[in-house]
């Protein structure tokens, strides 16, 4: 049987799905360039305007650039913190001889915690952060996002960490490698694809998180979702401005993804070399 047939089918299927995914995304992004009435009447062709972007970025009531910066700070910091803590802990639980019950209870507790609606936690976190005077700084929100994403990161890194062959680590230890060396030179390169995937997800979740961000920030520390939510007002939704803001908000994650791609590929070749 020719190799062409299955390959053609594969690409056709991928392109079809890609189209279904792309159409609404393109719709959102282009909506940012329309007037509201053009969007509401469902016009197909339209004359693009920049009014929405100027309104979102430069109007007197908008702090969008500040919010953007805030989201970058919170997103990067919480992702780095979360992944570091999660990878260390996941590896520790898998390889450092903790009793089974500790592993099960902790991972089970993490999963349970993931089920709580963030809204239910936000109130308690607000009270806590006010009590220690952190309510208008980034620290509170960074810690909150770290904790929110920790269970998922823990479990995921747990899977990827277990895929590292035990023999490699043991061989390294016999050669006298310290824990740190084992982690840095053996484990890290091999879990790179998983780490990259996890990083993208953690960053995106933090970037898009609304409920807790709303509670733990004020004007100077507000993040992008809080800004976007302002377009869904009590009596109307400002679709075109929301779309413009949304279009802008996709950019960092997209960039991160493109960078992360190369990281994943490198991790692949590394694994092959072993």
């Amino acid at each position: 049987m020719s190799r062409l047939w299955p390959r053609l089918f594969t690409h056709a299927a991928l392109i079809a799905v890609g189209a279904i995914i792309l159409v609404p995304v393109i719709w959102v992004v282009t909506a940012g360039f329309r007037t509201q009435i053009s969007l509401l009447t469902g016009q197909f062709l339209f004359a693009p305007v920049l009014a929405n972007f100027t309104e979102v970025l430069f109007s007197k009531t908008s702090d969008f650039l500040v919010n953007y910066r805030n989201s970058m700070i919170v997103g990067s910091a919480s992702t780095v913190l979360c992944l570091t803590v999660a990878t260390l802990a996941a590896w520790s639980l898998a390889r450092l001889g903790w009793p089974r019950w500790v592993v099960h209870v902790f991972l089970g507790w993490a999963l349970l915690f993931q089920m709580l609606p963030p809204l239910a936690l936000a109130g308690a976190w607000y009270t806590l952060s006010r009590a220690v005077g952190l309510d208008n700084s980034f620290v509170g929100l960074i810690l909150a996002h770290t904790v929110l994403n920790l269970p998922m990161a823990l479990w995921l890194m747990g899977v990827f960490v277990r895929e590292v062959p035990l023999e490699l680590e043991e061989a390294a230890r016999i050669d006298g490698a310290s824990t740190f060396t084992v982690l840095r030179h053996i484990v890290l390169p091999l879990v790179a694809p998983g780490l990259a995937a996890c990083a993208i997800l953690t960053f995106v979740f933090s970037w898009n998180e609304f409920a807790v961000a709303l509670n733990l920030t004020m004007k100077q520390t507000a993040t992008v979702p809080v800004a976007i939510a302002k377009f869904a007002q009590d009596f109307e939704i400002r679709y075109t401005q929301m779309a413009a803001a949304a279009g802008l908000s996709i950019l960092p994650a997209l960039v991160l993804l493109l960078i992360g791609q190369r990281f994943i590929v490198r991790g692949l070749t590394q694994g092959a070399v072993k």
Partner: protein
Amino acid sequence: MRLSRWATFGPALLLMLVLGVLPLANLFYTSFHTVTWAAGKATFTPAGIGNYLALPADPLLRAGFFNTIVFAVGAVGGQMVLGFGLALLCSRVTRGRVLYRAVFILPILIPGIVIGAIWKLMLNFDFGLVNQITDLVGMDPRNWLGDRQTALASVIAVDIWHWTPFCFLLLLAGLESLPQDPYEAAKIDGASWWQELRYITLPLMAPAILVTFAFRLVIAFKVFDEIYLLTGGGPVTATEVLSFTLFQRLFTEDREGYGSAMAVAIIFLCSLLLVVAVSVGRRSERAA
């Protein structure tokens, strides 16, 4: 050795205890009281298990329970199958893999509120894009979000669109980390792609699939943004889901004691479901 154990595990433990146990304990404590505010101060009146006993009589909760299960199974099922299928297909191609991956990821990059608002517009009866497309193929316009029969299905479809990238990303990463040796051996033995899938890929991917499924399920139980903007729980109670009911009772109606009891009950039910799901998964894993 002792030090490195605690140094690596300690931070996670600390974070989860301080920021995790405290709010949960607070929730648990509040669920056994009724909370009232006067002159700027709160009064906690013990209510025994009264709040819990009132839960089954809640009409929104009854509808919410059923809808959430349908939603979770339908949406998560769909996403897992689609995500895995896409990941499989993607792992087979080398040309354009980067492009495909970038495109398939896009929906998850968009904030939940925007997804709700934009899909609400697209599914609009009078002006929506979806009805414009169905018009092109000669179908009648349907009120996707306003009709009892199609409302929940439409919300599930939006959720599948939104979250398939999550499953796709994780499963693809899992696939790419798999060792190549078993595949080479299988090729030498002349195995078909179906046999490859069933005897090599699936068993090796089992942990990744299970974790992705578990987390996706757990997140699906919390679904809120989409419901809030798309349907507000309607029409009537067709799309009322547990977390939306919780939001209404706990926050909108400010019934802290009752709402906390609801939150605790939801967590308890979810964990039961998860335990069942995991043990079923474990048993099939052992059987494989």
